[in-house]
């Protein structure tokens, strides 16, 4: 065999990819070996985003800040908290009383959770309204739903930790849902508890899992953001940017706008945390857990109420659990159920009303979730649950098939002109 043939047979290998940095000096030296600096420049300084983004697009950044603050405050709380049924309640109170600014850290952590959900619900509404889940952003939407599931798990686990009455009974009710699994239900529940009732073993593992899932969220958020930087941001027009007339660079334009959004959000959060820190919580959670006394109404945190309502209004336990999990999972089908090629509700008059009705229905379910489970509430709850699923399985494909979209501009800069001329309406409070 000749030498020529050998060279053709084996492909060259480059294990050493050092180099290629646009920077010089120490920055260049680092960037040649670890290209994060050029990645940062490329993805956060020169990155092009649509010009027409409203403040609705700040919630991604807001959520990132919330997550970071939650982890910092959580880490601090973890240094004083004891996951033991005997000491948990008192250790939280010790944080509130004796640890320097412990009250601030705990109230921040508790209220941040609520504000995290407020921001996530607005973030999801933004996606629904402007069709951000559609081609090519389906995978990003799916990753988002995974984050939402993980968030709910973390929030639930975290709520059990202070070991108040609602912690204990909430944990009992939610873990008991697994007993609905056919054949293995009871064994699964015992396995989850690590005992024959919710007790010390359960609290200890809830604490461990609360930490674990919090960091899993960080990991999945990284995927969410990587996907965002591949497909790019959607925008109120739902039209993809074509040339530089349609875009601005991420910095300083988007960063300055996001900063305003973040500060307004932070302002509201701080005001609530400082002046009504327990408003969003339940007073019963200041009563230490007592397995012998059941509270008159077991109510989850406000952000679970709509899903809790769906669970409760369905008479069969297993079906209820399936419906509750399904009510979130069904979001994942939306990109395919709503096959209309027009993204933004600005050009979809009928779908727009459907989305608003969906939001209204969401609040109805939230109300039902907190109301006692009898009489008129169950009837309203069932209608609302039916509408919830009908929105996805009936309205979405039906409207996509029959709706005639309004005339659309060719590009984003034309969209901006139309907006100025008053030809189209967007959600005003978020566009200043």
């Amino acid at each position, binding site marked *: 065999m000749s030498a020529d043939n050998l060279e053709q047979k084996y492909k060259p290998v480059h294990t050493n990819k050092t180099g290629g940095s646009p920077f010089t000096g120490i920055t260049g030296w680092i960037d040649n070996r670890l290209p994060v600096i050029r990645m940062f420049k490329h993805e956060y300084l020169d990155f092009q985003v649509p*010009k027409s983004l409203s403040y609705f697009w700040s919630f991604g950044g807001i959520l990132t800040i919330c997550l970071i603050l939650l982890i910092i405050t959580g880490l601090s709380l973890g240094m004083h908290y004891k996951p033991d049924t005997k000491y948990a309640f*008192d250790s939280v*109170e010790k944080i*509130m*009383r004796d640890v320097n600014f412990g*009250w*601030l850290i705990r*109230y921040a952590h508790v209220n941040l959770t609520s504000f995290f959900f407020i921001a996530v619900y607005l973030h999801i509404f933004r996606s629904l309204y402007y069709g951000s889940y559609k081609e090519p952003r389906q995978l990003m939407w799916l990753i988002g739903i995974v984050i939402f599931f993980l968030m709910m798990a973390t929030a639930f686990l975290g709520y059990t930790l202070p070991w108040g009455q609602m912690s204990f009974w909430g944990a009992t009710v939610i873990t008991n849902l697994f007993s609905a699994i056919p054949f293995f239900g009871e064994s699964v529940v015992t396995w989850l508890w690590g005992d024959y009732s919710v007790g010390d073993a359960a609290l200890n593992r809830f604490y461990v899992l609360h930490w674990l899932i919090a960091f899993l969220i960080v990991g999945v958020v990284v995927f969410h953001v990587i996907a965002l930087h591949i497909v790019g941001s959607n925008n109120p027009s739902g039209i993809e940017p074509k040339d530089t007339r349609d875009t*601005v660079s991420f910095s*300083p*334009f988007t960063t*300055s*706008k996001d*900063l*305003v959004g973040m*500060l*307004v959000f*932070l*302002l509201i959060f*701080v*005001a609530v*945390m*400082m*002046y009504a*820190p*327990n408003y969003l919580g339940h*007073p*019963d959670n*200041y*009563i230490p857990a007592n397995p012998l006394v059941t509270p*008159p109404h077991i109510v989850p945190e406000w952000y679970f109420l709509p899903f809790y309502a769906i669970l409760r209004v369905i008479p069969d336990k297993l079906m209820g659990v399936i419906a509750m999990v399904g009510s979130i999972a069904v979001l994942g089908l939306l990109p395919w159920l709503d096959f209309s090629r027009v993204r933004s509700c600005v050009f979809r*008059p009928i779908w727009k*009303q459907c989305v*608003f009705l969906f939001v*209204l229905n969401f*609040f*109805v379910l939230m*109300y039902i979730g907190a*109301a006692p489970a009898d009489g008129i509430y169950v009837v309203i709850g069932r209608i609302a649950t039916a509408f919830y699923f009908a929105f996805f399985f009936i309205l979405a494909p039906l409207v996509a098939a029959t709706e005639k979209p309004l005339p659309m501009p060719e590009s984003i*800069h034309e969209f*901006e*002109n139309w907006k*100025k001329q008053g030809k189209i*309406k967007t959600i005003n409070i978020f566009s200043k």
Partner: protein
Amino acid sequence: MKTFFLKVNFICILLIFAFISNIFYSKEAQAELLKPNWSFEGFFGTFDRASLQRGFQVYKEVCASCHSMSLVSYRNLGEKGGPEFTEEEVKAIASQYEVTDGPNAQGEMFTRPGRPSDKFKSPYPNENASRSANGGAYPPDMSVLAKARPGGADYIYSVLMGYEEKVPENIKLEDGVYYNKYMSGNKIRMSKPLSDGSVEYSDGTKASEQQMAKDVTSFMMWAAEPHLEVRKKLGFKSVLYLLILTILVYLIKKKIWSRIESKV
């Protein structure tokens, strides 16, 4: 025009919904709680020191015979933002109690006078002892009670003031159960704790039922939220700071965006 009507529809639905929910809630609600003017409410709320000190006296002489307050230490009484007793007063208060300590070098438990670092001494050694002494009912620990009831301080004040001689006909009271206008279910196992002159205030304030209820509720609110004053002060500062910062950043944002918005 069409969208306008749809919007109006939407708002109408919301209003009807709010109205209906209001009716539902009021149907469930009990008698409306009494709302005295609390000094600790509002954006600049602070505790009234004299009231907290009197409240402690009411707690010590009336409530403490059945209710524990196990999360609070005697030293807290002297801390800033609380009743602010002087160091000597705190030491004197603590030393009135016999505290079990130990084991000592011989391995035996012993009693000694309380120190400021001790937690408030509980009237009963455990919950069962407490129940057996109170006819089966457990007087709840008062440390965070003011946060553990819907309505908070208003609720506690109302319950203290809500004992009525005349029991409505539809309510049947068992032995050792009392009628209370504001208690959930209108039944309470605690007999009327306060009546005019139950305690004698050392500062000369007239110990009316209302005055004592207000003082002791303030004291309980402080016990539940000892850092309330710092929180409100810090809250005002941080909100003001954020407000100014937000306005400045908004102006910067406008300036930055003016580079391109004029061209559109």
